[in-house]
């Protein structure tokens, strides 16, 4: 039972990431009936921006007791990731989707596939195809603060001059775990130009999974209020039901569509940081499979439905985690290798049973 619960919670954590991505799919589909294949790439770009924020900005340096510096680090990374993804989505909509909006759904779909490939390739050019490991948060210490045997490895960022005269910053292990930091060692470090060292905090997968779930639990009601109560949210709902009728109310559809893209991608950006913390890596292809699965999640939940996207994401995450575990218990050793196939098979079953998804509205006839 305990083991089941572990897999279940793990599934919820993964599902929360799908939910973060699925929300944008479902919101955009709801309003312009476009399956935005580039949405996974908005997520990927958000993940990179979150990655660089965590790696390079050293926000953990703020003078607060632990764990607040690390929390702040993540909050800023999430904010930047979300904003970057949101802005990219608005630009994409304006430059690529809006010009073809009247050309029919196939044209729009092909444009979305094109944008998706374009963004993947640009990411590969700009950031290389290398898989980058997650930058563990740092706890900074000045040299006088370390004394005696070091509890963990201590690192320092140091400037090096390359043979062609460029200065590069490199991380160096300066004190190994257990090594004693005495005045002699300190003098030696100072001589090397080290004034400050840091330890790297390895996040436990369970803690990450709980925080990701917590983030979804906090964010879902905010999104709900936004869509349910605000003027823009009501305009979104009206426009997604009937764009012409909404225009007759005085609603500027272009603005509503742009806002929808922004919010959808903003949420995906949050998911991007959740992803790199969960999977411990970022690369230009991470938008592909999670994006596809989030789309599956949106369809399972009922495309166009916001609660459906969250529910679909969580269900898919749990299915992907618990079902292979059960199948393995039943004697199928390779079950985990098949988890993606199992997820897609699950989609097919749901769609056969309920073609509009779990919370999807029955198809309305258009007047």
């Amino acid at each position, binding site marked *: 039972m305990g083991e089941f619960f572990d897999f279940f919670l793990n599934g919820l954590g993964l599902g929360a990431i799908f939910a973060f991505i699925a929300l944008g799919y479902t919101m955009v589909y709801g309003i312009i009936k476009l399956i935005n294949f580039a949405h996974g790439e908005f997520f990927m770009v958000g993940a990179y921006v979150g990655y660089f924020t965590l790696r390079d900005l050293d926000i953990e340096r703020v003078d607060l007791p632990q764990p607040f510096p690390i929390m702040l680090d993540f909050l800023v990374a999430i904010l930047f990731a979300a904003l970057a993804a949101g802005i990219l989505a608005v630009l994409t909509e304006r430059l690529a989707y809006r010009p073809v909006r009247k050309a029919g759904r196939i044209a729009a779909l092909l444009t979305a596939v094109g944008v998706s490939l374009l963004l993947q390739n640009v990411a590969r050019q700009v950031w290389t195809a290398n898989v980058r490991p997650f930058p563990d948060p740092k706890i900074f210490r000045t040299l006088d603060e370390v004394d005696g045997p070091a509890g963990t490895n201590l690192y320092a960022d140091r400037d090096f001059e390359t043979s062609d005269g460029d200065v590069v910053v490199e991380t160096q292990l300066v004190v190994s775990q257990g090594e004693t930091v005495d005045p002699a060692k300190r003098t030696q470090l100072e001589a090397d130009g080290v004034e400050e060292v840091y330890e790297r905090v390895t996040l436990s997968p369970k803690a990450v999974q709980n925080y990701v779930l917590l983030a979804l639990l906090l964010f879902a009601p905010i999104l709900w209020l936004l869509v349910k109560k605000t003027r823009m949210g*009501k305009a979104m*709902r*009206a426009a997604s*039901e009937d764009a*012409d009728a909404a*225009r007759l*109310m*005085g*609603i500027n559809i272009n603005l509503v569509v742009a806002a929808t893209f922004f919010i959808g991608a903003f949420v995906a950006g949050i998911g991007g940081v959740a992803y790199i913390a969960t999977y411990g890596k970022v690369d230009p292809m991470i938008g592909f499979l999670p994006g596809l699965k989030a789309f599956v999640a949106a369809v399972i939940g009922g495309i166009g439905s916001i609660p459906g996207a969250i529910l679909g994401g969580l269900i898919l995450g749990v299915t992907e985690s618990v079902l292979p575990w059960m199948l393995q218990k039943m004697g199928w050793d390779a079950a985990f290798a098949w988890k993606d196939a199992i997820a897609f098979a699950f989609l097919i079953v749901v769609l056969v049973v309920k073609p509009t998804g779990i919370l999807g509205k029955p198809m*309305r006839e258009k007047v």
Partner: protein
Amino acid sequence: MLILENVDVYYGNIQALYGLSLEVKEGEIVTLIGSNGAGKTTTLRTISGLLPARGGSILFEGEPLVGQRPEKIVGRGIAHSPEGRRIFVGLSVRENLEMGAYLVRDAAKKKERLERVFSLFPRLEERINQSGGTLSGGEQQMLAIGRALMSRPKLLLLDEPSLGIAPILVQEIFHEIDRIRREDGTTILLVEQNARMALKLADRGYVIETGRIVHQDQADALLDDPKVREAYLG
């Protein structure tokens, strides 16, 4: 107040309106009658900016409307209650009405208009928190008209308010349309297939056939016109 002159409208390459001209004067109820597919809805959609006019001109209070976006045209004082009602079924009655006042920022004004709509259609107040989709056809029509009134239009465009509604409710709705003109001074362009009811309510009428105006006269004269009687009042 509203003048259409030689308006041509196309769906793709297919022409739907041919040099259509009509006028609505301030304070009037004017009706546009004609059989299914004649071009009545097309005319209203062109006025409110949902369809582009390829030729001719549309003037509202002396200013051109052609080429303006629908969301700007509402702001100019033209509200359109579309054919088939097109209410937002997932939104509550209150939210539907709020959408009608989307461009109104003043909460006191919104409240006053909401009360006005409820005084015309008390059933809507009873159903204020129900979702639009749960209303009967007649109630949905009331909601569509009420929603259009929330922008306090100078000109109200009504597209077939009697369509698919029980006769008793049609009576009620037409009675309120008359009140909207008398008590609020709202000018109305009413599109109907139910020519008898529309002509009884209106001051003047136009008859449209395959995208062209074929008759125009005082409403009572049209009611007595043998050709109109035969084609539309039979």
